[in-house]
């Protein structure tokens, strides 16, 4: 019975209403009037959450006309940026929310795991929570009783199984929760980004377990930002962008499209050209970040070198000019600063004559943790005020693709960078 379609999605759409804009009041009278009117307004606003009479600006389509089929035994990865509709798709498939249009036909018992440990109650013991979590995920008490030993064994928290879960560390909680989920034994398994938690060892165990599930002829739908995990687990992928399916193919093909298709991302292109200003003696003209094939990109694998090309213009020579280039992470922490200082006497820029000049350099590979980063460039004159300040001039995103264990562990720690450091035995 291979090649049997188990999930068929046809013309699936889902509409949401986003929060209405708040109004500002500049006088006491108007805010008082607004206060008196507010119950009616709030009522309308709350009511509008579920009714769609007119096509307003605040209505948006989380999914638009999605079609695809999944055959029995396939492991399908769903890839897309945040807000592309991946989670909404999984929610519709797992019947948490109803589609606005279209339909899905599913053949087989579905278990969806959109969150690890749904329904864990802190006051109940591990064992009690296994029952709670298991029945929420659709198991019967009988099934849970049969699998209890296996679940406890897999979780590795046997010692604490009769302790209230609130005394568990967060890692232990995740282990227990995943163990329950891993023993669901469904025909179709839907998983959303659950691997983002837990330590590396356990994560590997989970991927292994999921691979077993996949090889056992089960069908898997998997959402993750971890491209390595998708590569490891899935044999097919679809790419979503703003609620629409834009590509469907093998995992490698789709990851390539995701990384290289600039259209999949907005606003953060890997290249910028600035209009020169005549009054500035020293200014930035152009900046681009490129991948190892020298193509402009904003998505990089963590194992990849990032190549930077920079063009600037000097209209007045000055020995104190230098360029300050910094990379800042999501939490506004500056990862590093690099300048053109060390490679000649004084600064390179300071020694250059009037004209346009170019620099290029590489960020080392195996350095960044997965996530978003921005680039700030300052055109400086030593002992003097800044000449030009470019904050957030470009940004890029690092996708997890590494398999080194120690680095994986760093990803989940508070460490800011994750360099791959190889130990050699002497």
């Amino acid at each position, binding site marked *: 019975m291979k090649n049997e379609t188990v999930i068929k999605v046809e013309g699936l759409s889902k509409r*949401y209403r986003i929060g209405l804009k708040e109004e500002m009041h500049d006088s006491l009278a108007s805010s008082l009037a607004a206060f008196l009117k507010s119950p009616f307004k709030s*009522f309308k606003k*709350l*009511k509008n*959450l*579920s009714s769609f009479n007119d096509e307003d600006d605040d209505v948006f389509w989380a999914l638009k006309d999605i079609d695809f089929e999944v055959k029995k035994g396939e492991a399908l990865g769903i890839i897309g940026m945040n807000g592309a509709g991946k989670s909404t798709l999984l*929610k*519709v*498939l*797992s*019947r*948490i*929310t*109803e*589609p*606005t*249009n*279209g*339909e*899905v*036909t*599913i*053949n*087989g018992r*579905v278990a*969806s795991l*959109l*969150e690890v440990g*749904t*329904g864990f*109650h802190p*006051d*109940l013991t591990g064992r*009690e929570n296994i*029952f*709670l979590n298991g*029945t*929420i*995920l*659709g*198991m*019967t*008490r009988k099934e849970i009783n049969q699998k209890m030993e296996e679940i406890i064994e897999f979780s590795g928290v046997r010692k604490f199984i009769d302790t209230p879960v609130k005394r568990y560390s967060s890692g232990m909680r995740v282990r227990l929760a995943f163990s329950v989920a891993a023993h669901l034994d469904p*025909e179709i398994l839907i998983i959303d980004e659950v691997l983002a938690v837990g330590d590396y060892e356990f994560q590997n165990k989970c991927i292994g377990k999921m691979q077993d599930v996949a090889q056992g002829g089960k069908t898997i739908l998997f959402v993750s930002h971890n491209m390595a995990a998708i590569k490891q687990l899935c044999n097919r992928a679809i790419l979503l962008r703003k609620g629409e399916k834009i590509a469907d193919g093998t995992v490698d093909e789709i990851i390539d499209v995701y990384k290289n298709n600039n259209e999949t991302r907005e606003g953060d292109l890997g290249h910028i050209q600035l209009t020169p200003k005549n009054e500035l003696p020293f200014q930035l003209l152009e900046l681009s970040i490129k991948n190892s094939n020298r193509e402009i990109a904003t998505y990089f694998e963590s194992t990849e070198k990032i190549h930077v090309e920079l063009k600037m213009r000097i209209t007045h020579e000055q020995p104190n000019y230098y360029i300050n280039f910094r990379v800042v992470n999501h939490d506004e922490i500056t990862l590093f600063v690099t300048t053109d200082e060390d490679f000649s006497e004084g600064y390179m820029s300071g020694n250059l004559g009037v004209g346009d000049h170019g620099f290029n350099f590489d960020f080392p590979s195996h350095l960044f943790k997965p996530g978003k980063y921005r680039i700030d460039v300052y055109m400086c004159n030593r002992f003097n005020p800044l000449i030009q300040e470019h904050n957030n001039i470009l940004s890029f995103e690092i996708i997890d693709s590494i398999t080194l264990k120690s680095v994986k562990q760093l990803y989940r720690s508070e460490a800011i960078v994750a360099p791959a450091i190889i130990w050699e035995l002497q």
Partner: protein
Amino acid sequence: MSELKIKKRLSWQLFSKQDFLELFKFRDLLFTLIKRDVQVVYKQSVIGFGWAVIKPMVQMIIFTFLFTYIAKVQMDDDSVPYMVFNFVALVPFTYFSSALTASTSSLISNESFITKVYFPRLIIPLVPIIAKLVDFGIALVVLGFMLFYYYQTQPGSVEINGNILFLPLLILILIMFSFGISLWFSALAIQYRDLNQIVTFLAQFMMYMAPIVWPFSRIKGITQGIESWSGIDGIANSFEKIYSFFPLAGVIEGFRAALIGGKAYPNMPWDLILNGTIMSLLILVSGIYFFRSKESIFADVA
């Protein structure tokens, strides 16, 4: 292998045989959640289930003090001590108000389930309705001791007769009514959180509207008062008729007839019970339909 179609549900497809089967399939979840609710309430508490007794007892003592010493309530028959009269009514009412309050907020407090897992949503408001029966049972036992005490020490105050056999029927009506209102309220509360506030008022309002602190016979005086104040002939009878459809009236008067008996409550108030049953069924069925029609948007508005 069963085929499942997911699409927008049409309004006439509110309850199918498949939905019932599914509800049955998830009975273990219902059971586990009830167990959780019962366990969690009294975990890390010294008195534990004792609270189920203390809460209605304290209220009974306050009411007895208030309505026998400060605002004296005219009783029909002085043979029944006010304490007994009041406690017999407070036990079912405490169940009603605590089940209603817990059930109204149940969808909100279980939001994480609703947005993360699929299961028949009806289970969620049903859980407190059943879980609160444990407290109710404990309070009933205490009530039993109290009745036995008066039966032994004050002959003529409590004379239980065969009507006690109707108690399960009364409890069933009470459960249907509580669940029916809870379905309406919980489905509304997830979108309009105001319901959480409203339900507190409503429970208090119903407490004085139901014949808990005052004897049912006083309803005549009240409706006649309304008639003479409004000057419309026959309005007293209409009001009485309307009031008889208030399910708590039938349940509470029924409890008194079933548990106190004697010359104060010789017969079951069947007309009240019948009307109350009709009303409860109406609220329950409409509640199920309302809940089901709202169900599909819970995950979106939560």
